[in-house]
């Protein structure tokens, strides 16, 4: 295994990390205002099929990505209506979103003539920076050779971390997730914030699905995400609901996935299923490490009112 192969695998790992990163970022924001949405997989599938369809129709990457995000957000709106307004159990509602998203996306994918299924990609996703920068050794292919969406993804990590922790809007979001009654008393519109948070979450998942279909796979097939949504949910918990850690986790996930193949090709005998298990083992390790220290536990615990419906009259 020579150096260029290692560098190229890291480059591909970063690309693979992006869909999971978008979805995880969205879910962090939804969770931060107290809404747990386990339907990430379904929302990603919707984002993928609608984004890919929009790409064929408009041949515009921007419109395709936004359409994918909007599709995810629309499905999230269903969850918000059920979980926030009607106070349905959030686990049940989220899980049904996976089934609805899977079914609906496969329906949309096969409806119409010629249909989205197995159609050629409508948009080209190209590296952003000029060739001279991408030819730099090491950092060229890995950090400078990515497309614009990857950089937007990283920028969004910074933006959401800043908004959540450094602005009054972020404080309001977190307050709703920690103690909705107190937030309500302070004049924060709890229901509105939760609707907004859930839909931002869906938008993130939709973006992730659209990126997966448009930039990574370059086609739509039924069940395209193959579990990426669940990885995102696990990543949210692993990150302790912090965007920057989620970024690191997502890249780690991409690297470990790709490493399995690189090692197999280099005749190094580490089973790839073992490597793919590592992120989950790491999640356990983090949880154990955190619970060992109460001070740390308070800092990275789940939002206190996560998955708890809020009803003003039941205060």
């Amino acid at each position: 295994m020579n150096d260029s192969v290692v560098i190229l695998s890291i480059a591909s790992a970063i690309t693979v990390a992006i869909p999971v990163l978008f979805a995880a970022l969205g879910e962090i924001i939804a969770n931060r205002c107290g809404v747990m949405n386990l339907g990430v997989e379904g929302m990603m599938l919707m984002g993928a099929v609608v984004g890919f369809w929009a790409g064929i129709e408009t041949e515009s990457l921007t419109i395709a990505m936004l359409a994918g995000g909007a599709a995810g957000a629309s499905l999230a709106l269903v969850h918000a209506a059920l979980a926030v307004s009607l106070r349905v159990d959030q686990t049940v509602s989220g899980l049904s979103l996976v089934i609805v998203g899977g079914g609906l996306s496969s329906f949309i994918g096969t409806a119409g003539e010629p249909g989205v299924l197995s159609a050629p990609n409508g948009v080209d996703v190209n590296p952003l920076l000029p060739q001279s920068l991408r030819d730099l050794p090491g950092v060229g292919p890995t950090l400078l050779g990515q497309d614009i969406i990857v950089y937007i993804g990283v920028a969004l990590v910074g933006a959401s971390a800043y908004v959540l922790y450094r602005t009054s809007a972020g404080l309001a979001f977190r307050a709703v997730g920690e103690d909705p009654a107190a937030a309500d008393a302070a004049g924060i519109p709890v229901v509105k914030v939760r609707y907004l948070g859930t839909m931002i979450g869906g938008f993130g998942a939709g973006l992730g699905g659209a990126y997966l279909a448009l930039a990574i796979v370059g086609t739509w097939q039924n069940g395209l995400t193959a579990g990426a949504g669940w990885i995102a949910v696990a990543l949210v918990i692993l990150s302790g609901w912090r965007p920057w850690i989620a970024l690191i986790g997502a890249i780690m996930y991409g690297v470990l996935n790709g490493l399995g193949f690189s090692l197999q090709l280099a005749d190094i005998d580490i089973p790839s299923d073992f490597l793919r298990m590592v992120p989950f083992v790491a999640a356990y390790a983090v949880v154990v490490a955190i619970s060992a220290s109460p001070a740390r536990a308070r800092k990275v615990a789940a939002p206190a009112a996560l998955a708890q419906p809020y009803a003003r009259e039941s205060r």
Partner: protein
Amino acid sequence: MEKLFRSKSSVLVSILLAFTLIAAACGDDDSGSESSVSDAPADATENDSEVATGEDYSDFKVVMILDGSAEDGGWNTTHLRSGNRMADAFPGIDFSYVEAIEPGQPATNAFQDAVDTGADLVIGTTFYQFDMMEVADENPDTYFLTWAGFEDQPNVGHFSQATEDGRYLDGMVAGLLTESNIIGYPVGFPYAEVNRGLNAFTLGAQEVNPDVEVRALYLNTWFDPAIEQQAAEALANEGADVIAHEVGAQVYATVMAERSGYVFGYTNDWSDFEPEAWAGGFLIDWSTYYIEQVEDIIAGEFTPGISYGGLAEGWIEFAPYGPAVTDDMLELVEERKQQIIDGTFDMFAGPIFDNQGNEVIVEGETIPFAERDFCCDFLVEGIIGEIPAT
């Protein structure tokens, strides 16, 4: 105000529930129920009006049970295509299918449902062996065909396809196409058929290009486009300029198109997708088998047991070749194809060495055709890679 809100929310609930139901019914997650037994496409049923032209088979009912979506563009599409060809051969025959039936209890229910709706023949398209045994026992007047089954029952036929015949010829084309002499070959799990396909493909590639090496990659998944994309990139980074595979995503074509390489399909015709990168690929056609079985059942001469078929039996055909495949290449392939059909060429004739240096098939020996279904637990010389322990 509160009251108004309540009535609004009940309307909202009804709308949402209706939406959810519609969505679920449209998808492939709700196919276990009898109501989703859908009529096969029109070309199979239109023949009802053509009774005058010959015999009428409208009192014969065939139900096919698919393990995934009929539009998956691969395994299930192939089965349905074979089923429709069978239906075309019997004017008026009542042919229908159910989709997305997972092995286990859902499959048992689906087989029972098919019998209850009056099926004369039920075709299971994946490993449903253990799910349909009891149903077959309890309904001796109904006939069953299951893919890759083996239990001996008087009303059950098993079938499995000799993909190695197709793989060998695809391997020849790949060996002629590659310039780097490195061919990538990602697969799902180390099953006998997967290893056999890898071996046949490699032997075919080596026949026309002794320098070729095939890099096998076991992915531990049958379908995961993001993972498969990484696998394709990893193989391309190792220098592979041709990829053949036995997994589900179309992403190999995307990756090969970016790098001006070529891709083979696995029992699906994706020649329209990234056409420049498309090299070709064998297809499975079970219709010959289905037609024979229906004829035998109607004649009262059904023979239970295992059937195994390849090129000679008409079970293997080929998708259109891509633009890079020249007539000279096809001439070589066509010659071998004819010899396989005639039985004058045996790809597994010894001596054959595995990639550890052991002589796995000695000079003068071979693997008899009927036993190939159980081959292989070795990888032939020229394959870089190891069968992972399971």
